[in-house]
């Protein structure tokens, strides 16, 4: 038998998925499905859009209107889908490379417009699909196949970046902290306006190996130890020293793009 969640929201004939053993992406995909279930969305009215990457394979497994686009462009395609048919709940799945390297511009502009898209960034700090090159979120000093002597770039904090560009909802959690992750995704789906959840993932195959981070479990343990909840960090800053902060970075209400557009249409009718 299958998990009812899987039966309801996945294309069972496409499973098991192709991701490596212990790849965090599966955990995120399952959290998204559960969040969609909790949100009570009509499958026919959900559209999942991705670019290209390991993460971007997710839509192929999920039983909605799914759109696997070109590398980096998911948000641009999604903007067209959403504006053309605001009835659709549009969820964008994108890797850290997809979203913040080649797709960085679409991210900041979608955020700026506050268009009602929900973006889930599968951030494994590496280009998984192409075999382990450093990405814009690879930590300084870490290795990638194109950073054999250690990365000299500074990494983006994608959640901060989205928030800085105008996202009205931006949150971060890890595949270890899967309860929170699911909660934020649910909140993001419910949010009207541009929302992004950075799901910190693990890529044992490339990131793990290149950087001697051990097994998938070792990497999950590292997430457990390295991230601290924003509320705790605020209350007990000493607990947050040297750690990454997760939580809801922004959550505010501002006019949403497709609604504003509909108002223009209404005004012209009147």
């Amino acid at each position, binding site marked *: 038998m299958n998990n009812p969640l899987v039966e309801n929201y996945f294309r069972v004939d496409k499973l098991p998925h*192709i*991701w490596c*053993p212990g790849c965090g992406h599966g955990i995120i995909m399952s959290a998204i499905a559960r969040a969609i279930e909790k949100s009570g969305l009509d499958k026919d009215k959900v559209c999942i859009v991705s670019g290209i990457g390991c993460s971007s394979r997710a839509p192929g497994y999920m039983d909605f209107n799914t759109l696997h686009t070109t590398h980096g462009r998911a948000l641009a395609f999604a903007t067209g889908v959403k504006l053309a048919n605001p009835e659709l709940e549009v969820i964008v799945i994108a890797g850290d490379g997809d979203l913040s390297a080649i797709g960085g511009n679409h991210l900041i502009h979608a955020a700026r417009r506050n268009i009602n898209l929900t973006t889930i960034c599968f951030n494994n700090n590496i280009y998984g699909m192409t075999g382990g090159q450093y990405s814009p979120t690879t930590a300084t000093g870490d290795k990638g196949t194109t950073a054999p002597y250690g990365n000299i770039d500074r990494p983006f904090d994608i959640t901060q970046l989205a928030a800085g560009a105008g996202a009205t909802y931006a949150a971060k959690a890890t595949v270890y902290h899967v309860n929170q992750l699911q909660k934020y995704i649910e909140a993001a789906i419910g949010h009207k306006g541009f929302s992004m959840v950075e799901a910190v993932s693990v890529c044992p195959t490339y990131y793990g190996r290149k950087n001697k981070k051990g097994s998938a479990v070792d990497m999950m343990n590292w997430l457990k130890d390295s991230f601290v909840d924003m509320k705790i960090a605020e209350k007990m800053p000493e607990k947050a020293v040297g750690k990454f902060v997760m939580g809801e970075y922004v959550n505010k209400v501002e006019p949403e793009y497709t609604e504003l557009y509909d108002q223009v249409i209404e005004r012209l009718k009147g």
Partner: protein
Amino acid sequence: MSDQLELRLSGSGGQGLITAGIILAEAAIRDQKNAIQTQSYGPEARGGASKAEVIISNEAIDFPKVTIPNMTFALTQVAANKYISDVSEEGTVIVDDSIELPEGIVAKHIYKLPIIEAARNDVGKEIVANIIALGVIVGLTKIVTEESLEAAIMARIPKGTETLNQMALQKGYELANQSK
């Protein structure tokens, strides 16, 4: 066996068969032969069965891919199911003895050898199964000289693993000799 070897090595992702293919080709080059090595990329590379192909010849090699291999080799069942059957009728099939041969294989020689077991038990590290494989293949075909093979192996392996790999190679020769 004609003096052109068209070999396909297959197994699962981490078993080092691509490295084995490269080593064999490099050995051939040390012997002044021509060699070419190709492999299949693709999503299968992640997880599923993987394959490496090697052509060794005294002539220039024009077409770079193995079409009808005169030798196929598999370390896992999945790989065997996928990659060994199209061996030429005059050819050789070598598989690990844990494998059940798919039906209908026609080949001149078929060897089932305890390669993985030998790696695990005799040498002590499953990871050297690929080197045992090389010993088996060269032991059976003499397609490259033992000196060149050894030199090629030594040039590719991590420092400090020389003895281990030597052991594996000898084990491979042994298995080959026993089955001749």
